[in-house]
């Protein structure tokens, strides 16, 4: 079946390696990390207008991933080896109490749960870190043994990590502390989980849907399917987010474009 794909941000919109996505369901706004543009852009999906979130003090150095957080945003900055927070007061560093743990070295991806706890995949140290929403204390989730964790997602006290170095996805139950590997053999990059529990995973040029109940893996998109569209060549699905029950949004980081894939066909 031919997927239905719409290009929602074009190369001409001036993105420079869009590497992260976060969707605000309430305001219908898509936040896009414009990595080499050193900024975060905001796409109003109703009005179809694209803005840049101002950074007058030049706090952002090299942004990579993003998540919604309380009434603002959190963005990982790999040059600063830090997390940046955006609120109505502007951008500032998100202070963390690392205690005896090594500080973040390469915060590649980030997610926040309903309680305000933050989860970060520290790519070069093979660590998944939890930052407590109240105390800001960083703890390493040592049960999650991984190598080069690239993407992270949290939903209902369950973490999903793309264990890129080991070519698999990890599902970790934060309460039970149980770990399940899925999708072995996939050089996974980004991950997002639909409200129905289905897991969406990208490789550079492929997009998969995995159902953890039936353990079935479906290939939704690859270079061959892509040729049916008149869009620029598909190069690197660097980030994913679920827009609503029906749609998945993804970036092609190399081609500076953002697409929407309809999940209901």
């Amino acid at each position, binding site marked *: 079946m031919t997927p239905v794909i719409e290009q929602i941000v074009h190369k001409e919109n001036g993105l420079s*390696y869009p*590497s992260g996505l976060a969707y605000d369901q309430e305001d219908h706004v898509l936040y896009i990390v414009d*990595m080499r543009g050193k900024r975060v852009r905001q796409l109003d999906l109703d009005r179809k207008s694209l803005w840049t979130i101002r950074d007058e003090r030049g706090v952002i150095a090299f942004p990579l991933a993003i998540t919604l957080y309380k009434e603002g945003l959190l963005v990982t900055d790999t040059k600063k080896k830090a997390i940046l927070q955006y609120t109505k007061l502007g951008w500032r560093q998100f202070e963390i109490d690392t205690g005896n743990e090594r500080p973040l070295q390469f915060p590649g991806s980030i997610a926040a749960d309903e309680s305000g706890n933050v989860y970060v995949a520290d790519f070069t140290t093979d660590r998944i870190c939890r930052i407590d929403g109240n105390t800001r204390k960083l703890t390493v989730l040592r049960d999650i043994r991984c190598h080069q964790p690239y993407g992270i997602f949290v939903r209902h006290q369950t973490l999903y990590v793309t264990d890129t170095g080991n070519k698999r996805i990890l599902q970790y139950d934060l309460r039970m502390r149980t770990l399940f590997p899925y999708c072995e053999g996939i*050089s996974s990059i980004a991950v997002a989980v639909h409200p129905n529990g289905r897991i969406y995973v990208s*490789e*550079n*040029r*492929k997009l998969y849907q995995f159902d953890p109940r039936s353990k079935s893996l479906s290939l939704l998109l690859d*270079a061959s399917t892509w040729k049916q569209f008149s869009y620029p*060549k598909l*190069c*690197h699905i*660097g980030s994913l987010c679920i827009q609503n029950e029906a749609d998945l949004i993804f970036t092609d*980081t*190399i081609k500076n474009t953002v697409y929407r894939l309809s999940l209901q066909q």
Partner: protein
Amino acid sequence: MEINKIEEKVKQIITSRMKDQAKIDALQYDTPLLSLGIDSILALSILVEIEEAYDIEIDDSDLNMDKIKDISSFADLVRGYLKK
């Protein structure tokens, strides 16, 4: 030499993205790309340009920094696909 034609093309694409003339002059086929500040995303974008130059499509399983760590490994990868 014909054998180096691919290496030279790869080098040309890489140096077109570099600004540091000293690094360009010092660039050898086995110079690690990371040492030039070329991270995985930049390396991928260079690979895409090479794909378009040679009209090939590299498989996802080959798109990793272990296989594209310097000009030689880039060229070996391209050579492998040209033979297919």
